[in-house]
């Protein structure tokens, strides 16, 4: 018979090591997020296919285009067909196409991920009174918030920044690190990281604020979708129709985000679409939204709820 020692033993570990609260929260949150995505296996698989499909398609197309181009003598017709179809221009990472069509495809997955993973980030902790448990540990409010932002940020980075960076690296390998093109791709690589970080950070802050405003993940999801429909659809559409003024686009978060990212990526094609509208306006609007969302989160993330 196994005899268990049920008495309490003291712990002799190191109590002075710094607490890596942000990483602990992120680590646990990512596992929980994956569990939420794959709670229904079919849904998880479909979402994964949707999230990584465009990347895998671009990767395959890029490789095949380069392969047939390199073996033009063996496959002259196919190589000519590829040149004429312009597929290489479409899938080769450039400032215009990588953060243009690729992001347009990915943004829907990002929004779904925000609902599945992001909506419950703070809301569920508020519902189960876990904030009191978190903040009675050696953890500051900021560490808690950064940990939560890190969870949704991780998933968004996984399906946006990471594939783009991989595509650029693959392109660099395929062109054989030619000095001129490598320098161009290196520039694009770093710009992509910065632009992607802006995109991921903004979306993360926005969805975390929506989550902090509610005590249930379901309500936060409704709030999140409702907010986007209102701002991106109704408000932008109606104002545009009423005023016929391009500056009306500034109410759209998507528009402002695209403008700022185009500026970071030095995407002149995108910037030239609205030459009279300074990027600083869009940056200011995004900054304002970010501050507002952070203020909401910090106001809601309290260990003690004070009822007036």
């Amino acid at each position, binding site marked *: 018979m196994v005899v268990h020692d049920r008495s309490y033993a003291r712990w002799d570990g190191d109590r002075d090591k710094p607490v890596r609260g942000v990483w602990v929260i992120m680590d646990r949150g990512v596992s929980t997020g994956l569990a939420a995505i794959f709670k229904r296996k079919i849904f998880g698989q479909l979402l994964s296919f949707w999230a990584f499909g465009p990347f895998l398609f671009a990767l395959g197309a890029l490789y095949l285009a380069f392969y047939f181009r390199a073996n033009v003598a063996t496959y002259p017709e196919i190589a000519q067909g590829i040149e004429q179809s312009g597929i290489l221009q479409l899938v080769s990472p450039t400032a215009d196409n990588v953060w243009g069509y690729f992001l347009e495809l990915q943004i829907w997955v990002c929004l779904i991920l925000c609902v599945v993973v992001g909506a419950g980030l703070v809301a569920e902790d508020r519902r189960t009174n876990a904030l009191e448990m978190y903040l*009675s540990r050696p953890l500051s409010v900021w560490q808690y918030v950064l940990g939560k932002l890190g969870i949704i940020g991780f998933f968004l980075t996984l399906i946006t920044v990471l594939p783009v960076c991989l595509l650029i690296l693959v392109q660099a390998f395929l062109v054989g690190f030619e000095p001129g093109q490598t320098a161009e791709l290196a520039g694009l690589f770093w710009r992509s990281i910065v632009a992607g970080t802006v995109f991921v950070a903004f979306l993360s802050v926005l969805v975390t604020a929506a989550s902090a405003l509610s005590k249930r993940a379901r309500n936060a999801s409704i709030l999140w979708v409702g907010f986007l429909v209102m701002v991106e659809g109704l408000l932008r559409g109606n104002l545009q129709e009423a005023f016929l003024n391009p500056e009306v686009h500034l109410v759209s978060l998507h528009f402002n985000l695209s403008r700022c990212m185009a500026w970071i990526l030095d995407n002149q094609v995108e910037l030239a679409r609205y030459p009279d509208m300074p990027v600083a306006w869009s940056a200011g609007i995004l900054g304002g939204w970010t501050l507002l969302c952070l203020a909401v989160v910090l106001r809601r993330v309290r260990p003690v709820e004070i009822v007036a």
Partner: protein
Amino acid sequence: MTDSAPILELTDVEVRYGKHVALHDVTTTVGGGAVGLLGPNGAGKSSLIKMLLGLVPLHKGRATLLGRKVSRRASTLRRRVGYMPERDAAFPDMTGFQATWYAGRLSGMPDADARRRAHEVLLFAGMEEARYRMVSTYSTGMRQRIKLAQALVHDPDLLFLDEPTNGLDPQGRAEMLGLVRTLSRDKGIHVVLSSHLLRDVEEVCTSVVVMRQGTVVRSATVAELQAATEDACQVTVAGPVEAFRAACERHGIPVMQTRDQHLQLGVSLAADTQPLFRAAEESEVIVRRLTPVRVSLEDALIDVLGGR
């Protein structure tokens, strides 16, 4: 108050929730061991604990806990303190083991240590059978135990227990108090137990801090508190009770209660008992039994709070 080094020193402490003053003019020193925090609802017990944990700010005054100054950023201090909240609080979507392990990780424990300790404290709390079940499926008693395990996982030097027996059946209550007693008496962990159930405090604590309307009205050992009001005795007589009663009043001995041949007199046996025997002689009664009245903590508390 006790001969050990103080674990808690408060000087002119004031805590506010907006305009509402929750604690004011709180000045006391609390020694080690098991300390009961007593007082009616709204007396400020929970507010005091939350202030000491840095969950609510100290508006005025000075507070030191385990020799360190209390502040909202006192994360070093929180590594040495465990907290079992009054409200039902749990990390969402976790099993009992995961929740306890996570609490350890958030307190700065390495992963392997947190896993080992989580098993140990769950065993100690009597949760070995249910540790792999989701916390959301636990009964009230199990939830109280899991909260205790989470508060203990990082092996604190001081444990704050806010109403730990809330919602427990008599057996569960006895077991919970047994665990707390073991921690305090055998394992050298200081315990601050906040409760409105006086028997809980009486069974576990060696000293008490009595609070009323946001301030400390008395701080003493349980024995001191009881002795202070132990100025009554029970007399059983044979003979004319009414005559004895009248004789007692003539000799200035207050008669508190009379039931058949038993009288409760307001005189301490430690003091001069000659007037009592003179009254017996005058009224021609035989004193058959004379015992000191054991004052319960409840009586003592009512006395301190000015209930009679």
